[in-house]
């Protein structure tokens, strides 16, 4: 087991990123010169706001009164009985306003954007959840919002496109490359390079140049902090396992981060295996990728023999990304988090499983974490506790689900 390979004092002082925005060798600021001053400005402001009482109070009030936090930690009784092993709890980010964890970050960043005096917000989106979250905060704070979204994703997440437009955002279809999240991110970066003086870029995951991976992680850490308090209340102890899906990796970093120094809590990230690891059509970046430089960061990437970024595939638009947050790359290398993958089909089955046993329709992204329980639970015992991060709800995926397994359901 890889848990045996943890260096004895590898994380006694886990404190990343360092002063240069690095997570070990990963992270950094690999962007065109034009963006450096905006990144520096953001970094400086955030360093102040992180410890600014007024800012934190304002954010906490929004999280409570607008986002609906704290989200519950639900004991999954029938799912637990189904496996007959460890007790399973679900951290209910699907109950956040707008239906996913994405708003936690968008709220934090919109407050920063206002302090920076920016009047225009841009974002990239895959599944549309981050786009909806960004459009939502822009509506609430009265800022102009432009969301870049790949054409393929616009098709498979139509409902969210409609939602963003209702919220007053402009959704720009991206036609380059694989027409998915990676290309939407390229286009958002190009917009930012062009309009940097009045525009703030709300990145939706723990990816991109420093300070974004840190900033998004910090804003998402509310998930893990709440879960820690909740499980300690219910069970008088910490969980044995935490499971989360990983695309860029923001819901996972959010729930993992407050537990990183709790060595006995095993952290498990689940990537999208697409059509299978041998198919060449998957997003198992940490499982099969290798380090490279892409979209502002050094991190594990899926790439070909020439260093061109691969065209990847997942049924879930939110996981359909050839990179991963740089902190995950470090956590993999130091063996603090173990990463697995599940296929499209396994995720679809898990969607039905959670719906039928718990009355919770998870997002296809989240369903990857659920699907991994089939591997994990048989290895556990009844005294153990597993928390699964239910990063979002699945209403947005009904089109895809009907197309794929509509027959099974009818």
């Amino acid at each position, binding site marked *: 087991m890889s848990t045996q390979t943890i260096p004895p004092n590898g994380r006694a002082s886990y404190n990343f990123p360092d002063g240069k925005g690095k997570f070990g060798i990963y992270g950094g600021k690999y*962007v065109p*010169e*034009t963006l*450096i001053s905006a990144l520096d400005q953001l970094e400086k402001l955030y360093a102040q706001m992180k410890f600014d009482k007024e800012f934190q109070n304002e954010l906490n009030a929004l999280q409570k009164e607008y986002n609906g936090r704290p989200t519950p930690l639900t004991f999954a009784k029938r799912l637990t009985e189904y496996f007959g092993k460890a007790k399973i709890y679900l951290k209910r980010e699907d109950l956040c306003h707008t239906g996913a964890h994405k708003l936690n970050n968008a709220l934090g960043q919109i407050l920063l954007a206002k302090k920076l005096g920016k009047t225009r917000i841009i974002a990239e989106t895959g599944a549309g959840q981050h786009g909806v979250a960004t459009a939502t905060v822009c509506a609430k704070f009265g800022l102009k919002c432009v969301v870049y979204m790949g054409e393929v994703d616009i098709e498979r997440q139509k409902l969210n496109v409609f939602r963003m437009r209702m919220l007053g955002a402009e959704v720009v279809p991206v036609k380059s*490359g694989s027409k998915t999240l990676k290309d939407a991110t*390229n286009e958002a970066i*190009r917009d930012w390079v*062009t309009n*940097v003086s009045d525009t703030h870029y709300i990145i939706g995951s723990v990816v991109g140049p420093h300070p974004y991976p840190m900033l998004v992680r910090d804003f998402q850490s509310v998930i893990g902090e709440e879960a820690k308090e909740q499980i300690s209340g219910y069970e008088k102890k910490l969980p044995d396992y935490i499971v989360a899906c990983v695309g860029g990796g923001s819901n996972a970093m959010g729930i993992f981060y407050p537990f990183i120094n709790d060595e006995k809590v095993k952290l498990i990230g689940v990537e999208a295996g697409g059509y299978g690891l041998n198919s060449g059509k998957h997003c198992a970046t940490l499982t099969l990728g290798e380090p490279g430089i892409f979209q502002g960061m050094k991190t594990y990437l899926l790439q070909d023999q020439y260093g061109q*970024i691969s065209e990847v595939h997942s049924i879930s638009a939110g996981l359909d990304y050839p990179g991963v947050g740089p902190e995950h790359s470090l956590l993999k290398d130091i063996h603090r988090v173990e990463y697995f993958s599940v296929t499209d089909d396994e995720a679809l089955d898990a969607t039905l499983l959670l719906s039928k046993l718990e009355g919770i329709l998870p997002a296809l992204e989240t369903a990857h974490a659920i699907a991994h329980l089939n591997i994990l639970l048989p290895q556990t015992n009844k005294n153990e506790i597993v928390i699964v991060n239910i990063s979002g709800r699945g209403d947005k995926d009904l089109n895809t689900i009907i197309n794929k397994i509509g027959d099974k359901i009818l």
Partner: protein
Amino acid sequence: MTKISSHIEKINQSDRKALSIFLTAGFPTKENFVELALSVLENGADMLEIGIPFSDPLADGPTIQRSSQAALENGVNMKDVFSFCEQIKSKTDKPLILMGYANPIIKYGTKNFCEDAVGNGGAGLIVPDVPIDEYESFYTNDFKDFEKILLTTPASSDERIKEIDQKSEGFVYCVSVTGTTGARSNFDKNVLENLGRTYSLVTKNKMLIGFGISSPENIKTFAPFCDGVIVGSAVIKKINEDYKALPEFVRSLSYACNDK
């Protein structure tokens, strides 16, 4: 003085701004690329900037993005780029500069990349996604034989421009506007003010202006603020629209670089 800067100096001494032309390696075809590059040089380009195609060129606008994509579809890889360099270099003394994003370079292996690139006649290197903040992480000793050309932008502070000038070799690449590569129809007063500011801060190196320059008129506008200009997207556009007119277009750009 470096190879590239002394070349620019010689051109400037003959009352002329240096003209650097950007071409995407292996575009529009692999077979005719060397011939195309040589024709650009014969028609008045003083240097060539050869773009290494990348799947995700985030500093580039639509024109160069598409040429990069087309080159990849033509099957162009790093070995081809070096082979082009070698063939071009055998026919000219003018400097060749490679422009490429970080990932294909580290994937090839930085040591091998530098040996092969310099060995085949590459004199300078521009990596648009490596700012000075990552200079030490990226430009290891492997890159010692390359003249590493760094970029300034209108968003760079005075302090940064001075630091970029100190670290840059060959010349300083002054990006005229915030934004991606691609032709612009006009440049406002702020653009010229910023060029003036940058030109006065760049003291160690020669300075070439790039991004958005598409016509002899643009070159005349920028001439007071630089030692040379770089034209990329406009050339690629000309290749797309009217391939046969390219030599004449390059001659018109080159003519505009003469001081009188």
